[in-house]
């Protein structure tokens, strides 16, 4: 099904206007570490998820030149592949990945192979207190360390779907944490809320996080844009709800 993936690639190439600050996908290749399924274009290896991560990047970069950002903090960094895409397109940016230990472990191990010169090992960042971030490097921290972050410069806070896997009060607390150090927000969410926990599905949420909860969690920020999220092959859905990409900026004082 390389034809489908190449169609998604073409979509990515046509979406980006010329003379913009968005780095074209023709400059992107991702690692083959762990044997992902993918395809090659002009000798560059890409995957289906790389297309989706690129489109999220392109949405953000249509509002903000990431070369003017010092730090990107991703809460819920998962396997680390979004950061890989961002880092390859904007090598000077500093990254902080925050997640639960199992997810953080996979990201740490994967990025050690994908971007070996750019990572700071988890073991080097364990000391409690404000972490000493190394400019241009990728750092791995437990999600609890979000409370320690300070002095991160011009900072973009990135959350793709993981807020939807929490309850509203937890998102509100994270919102307070992130608001301390962030200048902009990228929130990729199903703003209708995820499925509830039930006897049949214990893995749902207790109380879905909806758009109004995000507004309440980030009172210092104003949403500037909201568009349906696309993976390169299809719009992203959650049951009856759709995922949206949203970009927020801090309100003027």
């Amino acid at each position, binding site marked *: 099904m390389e034809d489908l993936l190449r169609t998604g690639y073409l979509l990515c190439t046509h979406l980006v206007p010329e003379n913009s600050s968005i780095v074209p996908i023709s400059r992107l290749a991702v690692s083959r570490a*762990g044997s992902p*399924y993918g395809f090659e274009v002009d000798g560059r290896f890409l995957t289906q998820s790389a297309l989706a991560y690129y489109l999220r990047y392109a949405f953000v970069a249509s509002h903000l030149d990431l070369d003017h950002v010092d730090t990107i903090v991703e809460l819920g960094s998962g396997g680390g592949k979004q950061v890989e895409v961002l880092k390859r397109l904007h090598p000077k940016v500093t990254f902080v990945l925050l997640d639960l230990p199992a997810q953080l472990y996979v990201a740490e191990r994967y990025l050690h192979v994908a971007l070996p010169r750019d990572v700071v090992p988890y073991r080097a960042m364990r000391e409690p207190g404000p972490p000493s971030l190394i400019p241009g490097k990728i750092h791995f921290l437990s999600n609890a360390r979000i409370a320690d972050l300070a002095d991160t410069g011009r900072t973009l806070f990135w959350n793709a779907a993981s807020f939807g896997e929490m309850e509203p009060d937890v998102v509100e607390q994270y919102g307070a944490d992130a608001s301390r150090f962030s200048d902009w927000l990228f929130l990729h969410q199903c703003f209708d809320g995820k499925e509830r926990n039930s006897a049949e599905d214990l893995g749902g949420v207790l109380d879905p996080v909806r758009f109004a909860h995000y507004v309440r969690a980030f009172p210092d920020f104003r949403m500037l844009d909201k568009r349906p999220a696309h993976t390169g092959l299809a719009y992203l859905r959650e049951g009856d709800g759709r995922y949206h990409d949203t970009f927020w900026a801090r309100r003027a004082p």
Partner: protein
Amino acid sequence: MPRESQGSSHLADQGLVFVTNDTQGDPAGSEARRERALQVEDDLDLLDLMLADHAVAPERFQPTSYWRHRIGEIVAELRTGLHDFQARVGSLLETFGACDPPPTMMTNIVNIPPGDERAVAETVRMLNAYLASGAPALRMGSRWRIY
């Protein structure tokens, strides 16, 4: 048997592993071949360290309802190793975007007549392998013309 081999064979026994290295054609150039062989190194001491560090974090940072029921199985899968983890079909690591598995069309076939399960599973496996090898998914090939 090493841990990662145990994990791979366990998943393979369930028909859940589909390794792209076996299905894609060889790329031109030795650099691409070296890159293709890249694997992610296990470090289970690091995993245990991360788990221990997180265990003492305040309650609000512990897994929410969504993750609480998955996390034990995810950690168990990680302990089997990360060899070819991105190629695993049906892996719990997919729940947080860690995988890019090969095509898995028609995995939700229901009401298969008793006794036909094996034949249907084999047919689906062959179709998926065909798609993964680069066959087009869309009906546009040399026999189709666009006017």
